[in-house]
């Protein structure tokens, strides 16, 4: 009896000691450790009339382990469809509290073009995802609510808390996150626009754990204002590939 009481006390104490930033850091830590990854991503755009349009991308990414507070991860994405943009490549060197460095390779012109990356809230490839939705979620990019609550989502126990983007170019005033209490992975995010109205809801599913790293398989995002939605599926996803950082340079912006 005394032992049970003691354990309960530790659990309660730990729970009370937990802050939203702790949860955010644990969520980030759970997605860390992929080292380098190669994915094939299928994105289905669904309009109000339920017409569907498909996009396929191949992506490689490189985790920045030297967390110096300046440089984030690197990624190189190649568009496979629609066929008129096939071969277009998008190289991103992420910065934590600065605009990312980004280059675009346009195969029809054989041109490498540096692009300005202020655009956080713009649509990614005509989908309901914005550029900030698909970039990595460094906790330091946000302010977090003081408190969190506990709730049930699809019969799972979740933490619910809010975060507020620090970047003035963000398209959101706040995001409400639903994080699985057991595994510390994001299950749902409600995005609120600058007018503080609910804009989008993203649902994450099909997580798999490889080593200590959680990888999501499906993300469904529903826009409540224009009634369009986008399903994103990681058709292939390999991690711990030991890719050379040199692959994420302008050398590979070519046919």
């Amino acid at each position: 009896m005394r032992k049970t009481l003691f354990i309960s006390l530790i659990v309660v104490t730990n729970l009370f000691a937990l802050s939203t930033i702790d949860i955010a850091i644990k969520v980030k830590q759970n997605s860390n450790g992929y080292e380098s990854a190669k994915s094939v991503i299928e994105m289905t755009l669904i309009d109000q009339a339920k017409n569907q349009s498909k996009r396929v991308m191949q992506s490689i990414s490189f985790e920045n382990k030297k967390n110096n507070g300046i440089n984030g991860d690197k990624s190189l994405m190649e568009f496979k469809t629609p066929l008129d943009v096939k071969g277009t490549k998008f190289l991103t060197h992420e910065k934590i509290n600065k605009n990312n460095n980004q280059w675009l390779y346009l195969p029809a012109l054989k041109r490498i073009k540096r692009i300005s990356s202020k655009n956080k809230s713009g649509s990614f490839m005509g989908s309901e995802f914005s550029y900030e939705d698909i970039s990595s979620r460094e906790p330091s990019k946000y302010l977090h609510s003081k408190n969190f609550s506990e709730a049930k989502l699809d019969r799972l126990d979740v933490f619910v808390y809010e975060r507020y983007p620090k970047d003035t170019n963000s398209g959101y005033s706040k995001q409400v996150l639903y994080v699985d209490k057991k595994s510390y992975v994001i299950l749902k995010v409600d995005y609120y626009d600058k007018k503080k109205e609910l804009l989008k809801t993203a649902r994450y599913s099909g997580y798999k754990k490889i080593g200590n790293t959680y990888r999501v398989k499906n993300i469904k995002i529903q826009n409540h204002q224009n009634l369009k939605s986008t399903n994103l599926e990681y058709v292939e996803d390999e991690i711990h590939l030991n890719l050379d950082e040199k692959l994420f340079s302008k050398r590979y912006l070519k046919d």
Partner: protein
Amino acid sequence: MKRLGIIFLLLYSFANAEFEISNFIGIEYKSYIKKQNKKDSYNLGLTYQNEMKYFFEDTKIYSKIEVLKDLNDKKRDYLHIDELYYSKSFDSFDFDIGKKTIFLGTLEANNLVDIFNRQNYQKDSLSNYKNGSIMANVNYFMEDDSILRFYIKAFEEDIKMPSKNSVYYPFTNKEYSEHIDFSNKKETPSILTTYTKSYDEDISADVSFGFFYGYDNNIIFKDNSQFLNPYLFLSSKLLTYNTFVIDSTLYKIEGSYTKTNDKEKIRIDDFYQLGVGLEYTFEQIYKNHNLGLITEYYKSDNHNISFDNDLFLALRYTLNDSASSEFLAAYVQDIKKDDNSVYMKYNGRLTDNLNISTDLRYIKSSTYIDEHLRFGCEIKYYF
């Protein structure tokens, strides 16, 4: 036994290779609403493009074939192997050999340093379509991510033009011969070397410098009483092209200095070309729509080239929708002369495989095609 070994090796490399193929067929229509007398009032053409990539370990073979069949101007017809090259990657350098197209530059309206490939005048004299050139090149990748590139072009191919009836035939009633006269030997190679480095300190920047020696990209058309034919002269060029990113605005500079050989013969002195520009995008001005503002200025002391004192202004309206719809409106004004040009274009997708573009272009030029107005439309089906 030896033959069997070769067959086995070929089969092994084929089985382990990645192969990609893509095509489009298209139809292009241009209607000339304002044109010079006795010129064709329209062009209707069928287009086809095939692109193939074959990867095996560090080796790549790439080919791009382009076909144009014009239904009323046979001189526009072509089947070009635009690119066909072999590429091998080593630890710190790549080696490519074959027919290839390269791009140099940073500006939007006119890339004055994009001098290595020649323009495809058959496709459209008013656009920047280029023909591939036979070349070898080596790209060295340094430890600091800078890149040193060497190119050598073996020879120049004939320069073809549309027929005399075309609105874009530049020689009034004179006959044109595509055979090139050279100021030196035909076999004299053209060489180009460029050095590119990216900076990521307070200002993010891509900075490039280059040197060129060989047959100049500018063409002299010599009058040989019966016909006109292209004449290529030798020159050396120092060139630079740079992009700077400051507070989400892109600042661009392109410049070159050309030293011509045989000045007395060709009557072209050494000359400079300079282009400066900026590009800024206003994001989400309505829903997800973006509005890009581009402004560029070009200056040169060679008044035989088209961008010698010209201002370019453009607006690019992007809808960010599933059809990737984009509208472009551009205006070019020659500051000293009364010449100007207005250009409007829409580009988007009807279905995932069907791309459409339409444009309206007005030109007023005292030295080229007087007053000209055209409507164009192109539909491409990708498979």
